[in-house]
């Protein structure tokens, strides 16, 4: 390691004797917990923090968005079909594409005599895109969170049991994992959906069947590292049973990696769900997810680009936000990165 002059600061040295002990006491800072420490680091990471805020905003809109105007997500009005977006206030700014004019520059609201506003426009059945997008976001997030939660439960249980008991148990459980990890998961998901028929539950389950393996491997690795440490031995000496050791000591100490893994499961589940919609295995109408909305948008891309634009932007924003937050959490929670 090369060290500059500046790096050899006084803080690296300690005074010896009585003098030093006094100084040390003065210099000590209040101890912070692991979580407080991590939160501090996370807040300093601009990308991760922006991701966190964006996720908060999207979650809020996914819950409240559909109620922000009077259109229901399934209200059809054929006279209002294929309207471009129009937003009060923003309609004055011509280049923004929120003025109610279509790609040829004709104000469709005037042409069709439509009163009121559709913020993101309408689709071919006259349904309000704003409402549908946030309903779709809600469904997509619901599937993603459910899949991530199931992955977490199965993965943590499998991984910790495999590592904790070790020996033959571990050997058998690892052989199973090694086979599963070699299977291209998306292919299995596609096949399962073909059999189970697309629906919220079947899509979630199909993703979980192969999805938990990653979590199990990470938890196993962590528990293997931890289980021979002194605090575990101490607890065992005091009479703690297997369940208490695992639930009370080993798993809480692997929470960091567990959270990080979950953070990356969520965007990949959103992607998988959208991907399935795209190849014709998505949710069936009238339910919409972000994936089905993007897919619908493609069909009319040339004439009504707004159908594709908004759903694409929202799904991309969600993916970027979760990935940024996941990266930030990895940097802030991973003990190896602690300075």
């Amino acid at each position, binding site marked *: *390691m*090369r060290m500059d002059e500046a790096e050899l600061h006084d803080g690296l040295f300690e005074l010896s004797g009585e003098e030093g002990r006094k100084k040390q006491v003065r210099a000590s800072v209040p101890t912070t917990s692991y979580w407080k420490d991590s939160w501090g680091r996370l807040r300093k990471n601009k*990308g991760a923090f922006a991701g966190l805020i964006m996720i908060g905003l999207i979650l809020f809109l996914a819950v409240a968005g559909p109620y922000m105007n009077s259109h229901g997500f399934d209200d059809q009005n054929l006279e209002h079909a294929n309207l471009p977006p129009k937003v009060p206030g923003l309609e004055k700014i011509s280049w923004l594409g929120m003025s109610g004019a279509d790609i040829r520059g004709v104000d469709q609201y005037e042409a069709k005599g439509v009163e009121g506003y559709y913020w993101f426009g309408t689709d071919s059945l006259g349904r309000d895109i704003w409402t549908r997008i946030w309903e779709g976001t809600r469904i997509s997030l619901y599937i993603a969170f459910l899949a991530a939660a199931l992955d977490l439960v199965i993965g943590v249980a499998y991984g910790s049991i495999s590592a904790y008991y070790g020996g033959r148990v571990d*050997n058998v459980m*690892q052989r199973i994992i*090694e*086979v599963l*990890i*070699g*299977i*291209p998961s*998306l*292919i*299995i998901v*596609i*096949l*399962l959906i*073909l*059999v189970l*028929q697309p629906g919220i539950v079947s899509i979630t389950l199909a993703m979980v069947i192969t999805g938990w393996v990653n979590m199990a491997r990470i938890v196993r690795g962590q528990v293997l590292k931890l289980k021979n440490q002194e605090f575990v031995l101490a607890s065992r000496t005091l009479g703690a049973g297997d369940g208490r050791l695992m639930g009370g000591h080993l798993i809480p100490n692997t929470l960091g990696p567990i959270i990080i893994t979950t953070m990356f499961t969520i*965007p990949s589940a959103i*992607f998988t769900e*959208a*991907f399935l919609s*795209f*190849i*014709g*295995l998505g949710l069936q109408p009238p339910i919409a997810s972000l994936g089905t909305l*993007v897919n619908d*948008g*493609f069909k009319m*891309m*040339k004439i009504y*680009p707004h159908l*594709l634009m908004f759903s*694409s932007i929202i*799904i*991309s924003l969600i*993916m*970027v936000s*979760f*990935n*940024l937050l996941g*990266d930030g959490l990895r940097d802030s929670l991973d003990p190896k990165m602690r300075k």
Partner: protein
Amino acid sequence: MKKYIFSRFGYMLFTFLLIATFTFFLMHTLPGSPFNDERLSAAQKAMMAKRYGLDEPLAVQYFKYLGNLLAGDLGVSFQFDGRSVTSIIGERIGVSAVLGAQSLIAGTVLGLLLGIVAALKHNTFLDYGSMIIAVLGLSIPNFVFAGLLQYWVGVRLQWLPVAFWEGFEYSILPTIALAAFVVATIARFMRNEMLDVLGHDYIVTARAKGIRESLLIIRHALRNAMIPIVTILGPLAVSLMTGTLVVEQIFSIPGLGEQFVKSILTNDYPVIMGVTLFYSFFFILIVFVVDILYVLIDPRIRLTGGGSRANG
């Protein structure tokens, strides 16, 4: 070493058998049937079933299927009368392979460049710029990116063809759409590896010996940083595979991915099964090669007994 390769090979075969079995039984529990045509009488349906061997007991069908598989026979398509699945795959794979290879090469070159620049200019504008590109490439779903490219470059600007496969310029947009993930993955990976390698003592030693900076980067840093890249070949292969499914559909490219999606929509089981097995085989082979390569390239990896996965 021999033992390790042998055990990996065993895993490979077993995994493949598992997938073949899984695919077979799943396909036989499918609700739809290609003969669900009201104009067909029961006798006609029975004849059709007999012709495709669907009237035999499941176990017989299964072992026949495995036997045929060994001979490279994936059955006959329901949709295209009398055409073998193998010939359909053979006809379609060329286009997908060209598209995949083009994306992999273009993406790797660009990704390496971005990653190396980001590491050498650590914590500068160039570093941040590269990493923003990487996060976007990893996050934006490939079908969304493909759609946006098609709309802006193809429809609005009309710089490049919007669809079909009739020459090199037709392949540019799909290649970009597929390569985005490759660029992002490799750039991030390369940056981290380079930063790691540059902090090692042997770099300091080399520098102290007065070696030219360019030579130091190429001969000492780059070589070592590139070793672990083989480990991300697996995820890259998967992303290209799934990517071709959607990208080929979006750009109406007559590749294997487009055929697969079409077969799903028409319940053409033999083609779905065949293509699934083909993709799985491809993937499993890559996992196997990566496992072996990694041990061969990097002598620091210790092999533990019983063929358990090496850890670096």
